[in-house]
Structures are given as C-alpha cells and as structure tokens.
C-alpha cells in the first residue's frame, strides 16, 4: 500500500510528462524509488564530461542552469524550472554528461533511479517517444529532430477535439433562392439569355400563365442546344428548354432535396408550393448552393468567395475558413498546405475587393482605365503565412503616367487602395497600427517613386529604413499587373548587388533579438506593460527566423520566394553544408506558426502573446526545441557578415 509520502511524490510527478503517461502502478513504482536532494545555490549537480549517474533528475523547486563549458567560456544552454526532466543521458546512452548542471537557486531535486525507469521506457511507447523527441531538458542533441517532435505532439494531443469538417456542416445554412428568374415559353432565346445575364444567374425557369414550371434553360443548354446547332436566338425558348422538370416542396428535408439532385443529375432543382409541377414556382436550389452548404472545404470556400461581391458574405466565408483552419491545425495537416489554402482564400478576398473598388470608381476616371496597377501584400500575408486575420500590411504600385495625369492618378489609386483596405477591414482583417496600408497616400505610389524609395533605404540603412525594408521586401503581387511587382523585385536585387554592405546592416538587424533559451520565470517573458509575464512568440521566435531567412535569401540573390519556410527550403538547396540546419529552421517556423495560430484561435486574438503557464509542459518543450535553430543561424550570420567587425 502506498503511503502518504509516496503519494505526495507521485502527485507531483504525475503533473509532468513523461510521468503523466505512466500507469498508476508504474507511477507508484517510480515514486517509491525517488530520492530527494536539496542543493544550495552555487552547487553543481553534475559536470560536463563526468560519467552519468545512475539517476536522472526532475526539478521539484528552485532552478537549475545547464551550461556548456567551451575553451574559455561557459555558455548557458538551458534553464530548467519546475517539472523539467534533465540529466537523462544516464537513462539513454549512459554516456558522460554533455553539460554542467548548476544550481542557480536553492533547489529540491527528485532523483529517479535509471534501473526503475528503464523497464517503463521499453514498455511504454509514449514515454519512449517523449525522450526520443528530445523533450527532456539538456538532452542537447544539438539539433533535435523536430519532425520527431511534431510526431510526438500529434500523439500527445488531447483526445477531445471536435471532428468538424463534416460533409454537411449545418443544414440550416443551405441557401434557397426565393427570387426565381422566370419567363414564358413564347419569349425568344435572346430575351431569356439577356435576363439571365442581367440577373447573373445560370438558369431560367420557363413558366405558364399561372407561374407553374414547364421547363428550365441553363447556360449549358444555351451552349449545346443553341450555339452548337446554330439555332436562331429569335426562336422561342420553349423549343430548347428541358421539359418536364422535377420539382420538390420547399419544406422538404435537405437530404431529400440533395438526393433528388444527385439521383437525377440535376444542377438546379425547382421548388413549388406543393412539390408538384401543378403549383406555382416558389424557389430554386443550385448545386452551387449545395456545395456552399457542404462544410468548410477549401474548394467550397474559394468557390463561394469567387461568386460573391457581397462583403457580408465574404466575411462569413472568411469566418468559416477559420473553423477549417482550426481543424487543420489540430489535426497536424502539413503547414505548407494549410498556409497555401489560407493565403489563397485571403488572396481571393483581395481580388474580389479590387473588383468592388474598380466597379465603384473606374467610371469617374475613364482616362486611367488602361493604367496598370498592382496591389501588394506585405508582411505575413506577403510571405503567404497569414493564418489569422492579424494586421494587414499592404501597398499599391501603379504605372508611371504622363505629367498631366499624375495628380488624377494619385487620387484614383488612393481611392482604389482605400476601398480594398475597407473591404478587408469589413472582412475582419485588423488595421495596421503603423498605417502601412494601401489607404495611406505614402504607400500608394507610381513605380518610379517606389524605386526611389527602395534605393533610398538601401543606400541609407537607418533603423527605420531597415524596419521598413523588413516589411516591404516581403511584398507579393496579389491582384492587378504582377509585372510591376517583378520590376520592383529586380530593382531591389540590382540595388543590393551594387551596395552589398546593406546586407550587413540587415544582418545586424536580424540579430537584434537573441534566441530565447527557454521559459524561465521572467527570463524571456515581457517585463512590463499589458503583456507582462507573457511570451511574445512573434517578436522573440518568429521574427528572428523571418529576418534570417530574408537576409540569407537576399544574399543569394533569390527573389520571388517569400514564404519563410520555403525560403529555408531553398537555402537548404543552395547551401548543402547547412542543409540540416535550414531544414530544422523551416520546421521550427512551421511549429511556431501552428502554435501561434492555435493560441490565437483559442483566445480569439492575434496569438502573439503566450502565457508560459497556460501551455502544457509538452507544448513548452516543443516550443523550446523550436528555438534551438535560431541561435545557430544567428551564429552563422554573425560570422558570414563579419558582424563583430561591423558596428554602426
């Protein structure tokens, strides 16, 4: 029978992986074998190079620093805090310790005999995977294989997740058009087609005097029965209609309606008052409506967006995309797929927005109708990494116009830019606090002005210029003439080639945020302000990676690859010697993106600030491991760009 003391130990251990995966019996066995040590600040639990002790350790209270002695100095590799497992080399390889364990604050340590644990390691796959994935502190396989970590994360994921993405997400959402386009059978094909065009629909119901359906004509019928057969458009429409329509009652259940359409291969189903063709038409369902109601698949959402210019509907579709996103993230769908899908959805919204904008203003400026322009997404959307609707960063570039049109063009394109930004705001995208948006006259410029601006930043890399460069250089053409964007990219590339020292400045900037070592009290968390004690995942982990990727890609003269993990992929190809590191960095970035998005979805915010306490131990470890490539990359950059000799 376990006594109070053993229970007390067990209760502590069970809060932390890998002990949380143990059965009650195993946990008791381990807890009984625990030895409790109290070490004073300044003591050393084990030293680098020493043979492994027959125990591994769990920190009960206090704090331990894992350091690596190098020739002259000592580098801090990690901080352990409550519940961290360390010194596991004894357990795994029985090799000498790779690090020193120094007591930074008086610490109570639970030492667990390896002999007791070994057996569980063999029998419990989750425990084994925990160690294999490098979650224990100070395991220091210098570059942990993050794919193991991802795999592990999937395995440890909480069981409770909603298996949404059902075929029919919500039946009540099916939209039945009540305004049905009709005409009488005696009207000409031309008249019918005209009506369809005006109403922007793909079908017209042919009715008798009492509005009862006698047939239907669709786009396809116009093609196959009129044009192909060279029938005159003056012929009456009843000659080419599909007679004997199938009808249903409007109140019929969704599955009945849907099955009717599937069985009869109908693209359109006509609804009448009593369900027979002997009563007046009361509605119509198209397969498009059905598709839209069929849950949140990317194809459906994109299709839905492309078929609407109604901002409210666009927002509701974007909201649904967020549900889909959550499903993808929780189910570990590959990040490049998730990111591309979300980017495509965001891009379609922007394209639709530009159609709305053009429709409202082009009539007033006929002289500018032929002037090419391009809407640029920047920042995370530019990098095809915007999962949540965080700040929009965008700008607009247009072709240089003759002297006399300059003022008009500035006016017109600012209106276009502003209209697009407004649509994005209505669709739930946050406004950019720095006003880097196409509604700001400063960022709606003709091509020549943009070139001057970029050249200026490259020639005089002030702090502000570097900050802007880091946002603007990730631009991506979304709608309009992408040729303008390409010209701009080439310009940047040429300018940098002629002034390579700019890259050194950019490198210096990329090293501004040191890699976080681990979650340790207020070591990495924000120290003041609204987000006190929270971890800024964007500034401290994602931005350093983004900056490093941009810098290195630019230094190779690669343009047109914007996405951070694709940039790392490309770098891995370009520098085979650092291939492994770049691959890890890309993976780390994916993990961070996923984590941030999930955090944001959970708390309905940008997900940028994470409370270390709110994360499970496992997520903290995963995050910690994701930091590891950052410092290594920074080291490479420091050497490659000779930053030690290069100070402003």
């Amino acid at each position, binding site marked *: 029978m376990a*006594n*109070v*003391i053993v229970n007390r130990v067990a209760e502590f251990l069970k809060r932390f992986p890998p002990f949380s995966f143990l059965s009650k019996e195993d946990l008791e066995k381990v807890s*009984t*074998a*625990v*030895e*409790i040590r*109290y070490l004073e600040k300044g003591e050393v639990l084990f030293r680098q190079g020493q043979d492994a002790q027959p125990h591994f350790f769990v920190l009960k*209270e206090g704090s331990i620093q894992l350091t690596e002695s190098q020739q002259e100095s000592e580098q801090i590799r990690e901080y352990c805090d409550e519940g961290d497992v360390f010194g596991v080399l004894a357990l795994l390889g029985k090799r000498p310790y790779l690090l020193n364990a120094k007591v930074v604050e008086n610490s109570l340590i639970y030492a667990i005999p390896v002999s007791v644990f070994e057996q569980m390691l063999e029998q419990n796959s989750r425990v084994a995977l925990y160690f294999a994935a490098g979650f224990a502190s100070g395991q220091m396989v210098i570059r942990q294989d993050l794919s193991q970590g991802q795999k592990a994360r999937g395995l440890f994921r909480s069981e409770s997740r909603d298996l949404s993405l059902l075929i029919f997400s919500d039946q009540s959402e099916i939209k039945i058009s009540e305004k049905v386009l009709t005409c009488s059978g005696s009207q000409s094909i031309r008249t019918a087609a005209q009506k369809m065009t005006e109403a922007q629909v793909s079908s017209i119901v042919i009715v008798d005097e009492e509005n009862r359906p006698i047939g239907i004509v669709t786009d396809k019928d116009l093609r196959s029965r009129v044009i192909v057969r060279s029938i005159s458009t003056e012929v009456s429409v009843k000659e080419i209609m599909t007679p004997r329509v199938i009808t249903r009652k409007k109140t019929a259940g969704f599955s009945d309606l849907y099955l009717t359409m599937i069985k009869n291969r109908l693209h359109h189903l006509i609804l009448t008052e009593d369900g027979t063709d002997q009563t007046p038409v009361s509605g119509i369902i198209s397969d498009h409506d059905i598709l839209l109601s069929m849950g949140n698949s990317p194809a459906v959402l994109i299709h839905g967006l492309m078929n609407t210019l109604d901002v409210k509907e666009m927002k509701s579709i974007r909201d649904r995309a967020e549900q889909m996103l959550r499903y993808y993230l929780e189910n570990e769908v590959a990040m490049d797929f998730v990111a591309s899908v979300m980017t495509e959805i965001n891009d379609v919204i922007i394209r639709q927005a530009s159609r709305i904008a053009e429709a409202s203003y082009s009539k007033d400026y006929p002289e500018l109708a032929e002037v090419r322009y391009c809407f640029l997404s920047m920042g995370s959307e530019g990098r095809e990494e915007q999962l949540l609707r965080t700040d929009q960063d965008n700008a607009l570039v247009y072709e240089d116009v003759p002297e006399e049109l300059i003022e008009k063009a500035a006016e017109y394109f600012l209106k276009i830019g502003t209209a697009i930004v407004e649509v994005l705001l209505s669709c739930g995208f946050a406004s950019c606090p720095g006003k880097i948006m196409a509604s700001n006259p400063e960022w709606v410029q003709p091509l020549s002005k943009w070139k001057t601006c970029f050249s200026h930043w490259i020639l005089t890399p002030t702090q502000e210029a570097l900050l802007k460069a880091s946002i603007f250089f990730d631009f991506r053409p979304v709608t309009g003439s992408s040729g303008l964007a390409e010209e701009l990219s080439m310009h940047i590339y040429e300018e940098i080639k002629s002034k390579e020292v700019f890259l050194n400045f950019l490198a210096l900037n990329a090293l501004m945020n040191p890699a976080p070592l681990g979650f340790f009290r207020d070591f990495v968390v924000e120290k003041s302000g609204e987000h006190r004690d929270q971890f800024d995942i964007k500034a401290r982990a994602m931005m350093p990676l983004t900056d490093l990727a941009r810098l290195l890609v630019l230094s190779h003269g690669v343009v047109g690859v914007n996405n951070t993990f694709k940039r790392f992929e490309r770098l891995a190809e370009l520098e085979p010697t650092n291939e492994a590191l770049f691959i890890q960095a890309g993976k780390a970035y994916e993990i961070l993106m996923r984590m941030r998005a999930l955090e944001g979805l959970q708390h309905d915010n940008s997900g940028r600030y994470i409370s270390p306490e709110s994360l499970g131990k496992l997520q903290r470890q995963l995050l910690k491991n994701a930091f590891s490539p950052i410092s290594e990359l920074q080291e490479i950059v420091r050497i490659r760009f000779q930053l030690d000799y290069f100070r402003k």
Partner: protein
Amino acid sequence: MSWWEFWKARGEKADFVASFLELAKTSIPGIRAIDQLNFTVLDTETTGLNPAEDFILSFGAVKISQMTIQVSTAVEWYPVSPKNGKATAAIHGLLESKTPVQIADFVPNLLSYLGSSILVGHHLGFDLEMLLKTCKPFGLEDFPNPCIDTMNLAIRLEHGPNADRHQIKSEEYGLDSLCDRYGITKDDRHTAAGDAFLTAQLLLKLLVVAKKKGIKDFASLSKPW
C-alpha cells in the same frame, strides 16, 4: 495479565530489544561528516497529549542518508490502540486505523527500522515518550539513539547557540511557521507520515544552513547548547 505485562514484571528484555541496544553501542565518531549520517525523521499521531493516558494512533517516518530523502524507506504504521481517541480524530482526521498492526509486531518492526540512526522529529521529545511507553513492556528503558529536534535546531541556527529561550516566541518555531519560512509546501499536515515528510524536508534545508555556519560534522551538530 497479558503476556507482555508478564515480561514487564520480570524486567526482562525481549531479544529484539537486546539486539537493538547492542547496535547502538557503536557510537558515531564526532568527525563524521553530516552527509555521511543516517537520520530517521519521524512523527506520531496520538489520542491526546498526555503520555500517561494516551496512545499512538499512527507512526510515520522516512530516512535520510547521504543528504537525500529516500522515499523508498517511507513507512506509515497504525498500531492497535486500546483507546479510540475521538478527540484527536477531530484534529487529525484519523478515524479508523487503516491497516492495524498489533503492538507485538509494531515494536520489533519499529526498533529494527530505527536501528542506530539519528532520530529526528519536530517536538521529538513527545514522540519519543509516546514510543517509549509502547516499547517499555518489551524491556526498553530508553532510546539510546542520538536525537535532533528540528525545532531546537532551527532556533539554534537562527538565534545562535546562546539564545535566550524565553525571548523566543515558540509559535514561530512550530512546524507550520517553519515550513512557511523555509518554503516547504504544506500538504498532508496532521498525518504522521505527512508531518514526517515535511520535517525531513525541513531538516535537509536546515542542514544546508548549518553547513554554512560551520556545522559540518556529527560532533558540532549534536553539541548541546
């Protein structure tokens, strides 16, 4: 007259008592370093505070060797008591003893468990008095082991060996206050094993303080003051 009272009358020692006393004859050298000492940290819960009338309800203990609490040595025993102690039950939450141990088994187990280790407890005197009462029928006159009362140790470390006991507020040296002061999470208060575990953690921390003050071996640790 039960069989152990028969022994008592004759003043004879049970065999296990004799071998327990034999063990204690080898005294610990004064220069032995603290981390080489073996401690048994114990606590008892009783039916009341009067050793003459009250009985032990439970005994909990854990050992420290090499400055490490050996969780595997933790014990929790519930000796059968002639008095059911309704009053204490209210404080300790002890109602029925979990798995009762007959006194005839409890005493030999206890003595072999204690061995020649240094006995440690908070208000240890009271616990030892209660234990001795239980052991007396088997011929034990006194515990020969060296003893450390964590309350006294704490006072000594905080106020120096020459402190005036009358100036010291005793409530500041209760187990509760000391746990607060030394950052020990108080769980399972008022169970014998729970209190023993807290006392063991307290001892570890006190010994570290002691080391800093130059108390590094058995002689200086057990110095009377």
